[in-house]
């Protein structure tokens, strides 16, 4: 008969301890044979029952949710895939016809590469395929097609503004095109791209007001660009996320009641909203051994919302709180925060990372079978 650990013991195992100088109980221990008589073997039904997901925010460019009941190795795999393995479209090759601005060709090209673009989801994710550079160093001629290359051009020349006031000093009013913005980039659809990227779905910078370069009269920039699909492990410009991160849910446990002015001081050790102040009720004060005896009507500190805590450990610096509070983090409660750069919806990036992980394993399973054959 398998031994059943008590709820309190399970709770204790599930918490990473945070003390003033050290972090304790870091590794997960829920493996078979780790605890005598307990069964921790993989069980998909049990996993399904324990897994919980709760959204906190779901906007196109920013999503936040709690993923509860998975191991760090799994959560981290999803995070890593989101950053490095999900493909997006970015400027990869710049053909400079003329650049007389003060910004050098290579710096300008680098800046262009970093601009995030958006476009029709269907076209971006399904229609567009990889462009493969010939590995033998031969010419790339004849390798560009409508399904693997997106063509952009940027053509601006700065001139004097004849209508400007005589005593005008602002360059943006004194000259035409003194500033080159991302919105000056022109998308040139080729072949079947017109079907996928027209109207609302046209390929365009996510933010039209990104400053690319500054010009003065007589200077001009004239270039064409190729965009290809790529992944973040190759270059960060291909990453679909600005940030994709998680943190563990903090826990705050009061070992003894904190009352009166101490309670106010304790609340100030945390960001607003984490610790609440309540008055001790008659019922609590009457209860023996609660620690509230004879304190009716006084203020007491209660833990309200640990989600808002930053785990600054400020409370552990005060002698009066050092032994009355226990800080920790829940080992299997991941608060994900995903910020999209605009080519994917932020929640779709997470879904894609799961699909990517599954596909990776499916392929490797085939490979393992091949290896044995």
């Amino acid at each position: 008969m398998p031994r059943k650990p008590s709820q309190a013991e399970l709770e204790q195992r599930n918490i990473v301890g945070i003390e003033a100088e050290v972090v304790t109980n870091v590794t997960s221990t829920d493996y078979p044979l780790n605890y005598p008589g307990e069964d921790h073997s993989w069980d998909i039904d049990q996993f399904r029952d324990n897994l919980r997901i709760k959204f906190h925010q779901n906007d196109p460019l920013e999503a936040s949710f709690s993923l509860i009941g998975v191991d760090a190795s799994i959560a981290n795999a999803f995070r890593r895939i989101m950053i490095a393995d999900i493909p997006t479209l970015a400027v990869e090759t710049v053909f400079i016809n003329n650049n007389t601005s003060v910004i050098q060709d290579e710096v300008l090209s680098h800046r262009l590469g970093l601009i995030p673009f958006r476009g029709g989801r269907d076209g971006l994710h399904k229609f567009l395929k990889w462009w493969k550079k010939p590995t033998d160093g031969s010419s790339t001629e004849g390798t560009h097609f409508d399904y693997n290359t997106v063509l952009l051009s940027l053509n601006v020349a700065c001139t004097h503004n004849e209508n400007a006031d005589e005593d005008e000093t602002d360059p943006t009013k004194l000259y035409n095109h003194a500033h080159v913005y991302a919105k000056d980039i022109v998308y040139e659809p080729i072949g079947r791209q017109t079907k996928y990227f027209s109207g609302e779905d046209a390929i365009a910078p996510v933010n039209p007001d990104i400053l690319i370069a500054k010009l003065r009269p007589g200077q001009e920039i004239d270039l064409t660009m190729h965009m290809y699909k790529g992944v973040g492990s190759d270059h960060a410009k291909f990453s679909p996320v600005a940030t994709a991160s998680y943190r563990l849910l903090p826990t705050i446990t009061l070992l003894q009641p904190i009352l009166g002015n101490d309670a106010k001081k304790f609340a100030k050790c945390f960001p607003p909203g984490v610790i609440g102040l309540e008055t001790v009720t008659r019922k609590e004060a009457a209860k023996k051994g609660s620690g509230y005896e004879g304190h009716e009507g006084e203020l007491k500190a209660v833990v309200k919302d640990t989600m808002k805590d930053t785990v600054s450990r400020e409370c552990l610096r005060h002698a009066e709180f050092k032994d009355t509070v226990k800080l920790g983090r829940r080992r299997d409660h991941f608060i994900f925060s995903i910020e999209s750069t605009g080519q994917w919806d932020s929640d779709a990036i997470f879904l894609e990372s799961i699909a990517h992980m599954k596909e990776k394993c499916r392929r490797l399973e085939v490979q393992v079978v091949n290896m044995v054959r």
Partner: protein
Amino acid sequence: MVPNSTTKKQTPQEAGDDDISMSRPPASHQQPIGEEDASMADVEEEYEEGDEDDEEVAEEETQRVRLLPGSSPNAASFEFLDEGHTLGNALRYIIMKNPDVEFCAYAIPHPSEAKMNVRIQTYEGTTAIQALEKGLRDIQDLCDVVTDKFLDAKLQFLEDAKA
């Protein structure tokens, strides 16, 4: 080649008769416009073929898993090419969850080689290869469960927002 570009384009010679550095052909491979039109005509057919090719290539990809020398049925090391901590740690976790596995660990022997090694030792009754296969299958099941729950949570959040 710039595909089907209709923009005004200057050949290098035109652009810089008076500029010696510009008269050198650029690293790009821009062609006269006439030739481009011809190549774009084939695109439709080539694409359809190319699509099928892509899928075949995907099935016949190069072997990326290798059994390292010195293995026995119950204890083996595997070498994965082009894999890293992403798969390594997740696979290690799920294989360690298998009660028939005595030991499982992964390592990246050298950071500048795109290789990841997994060591599996099992008890009698299963083999290291079976444990590895089960691990890969278990991750796929896990992914399905997370996807389902994620979609449920997304719907729930939408409903809560409406209410």
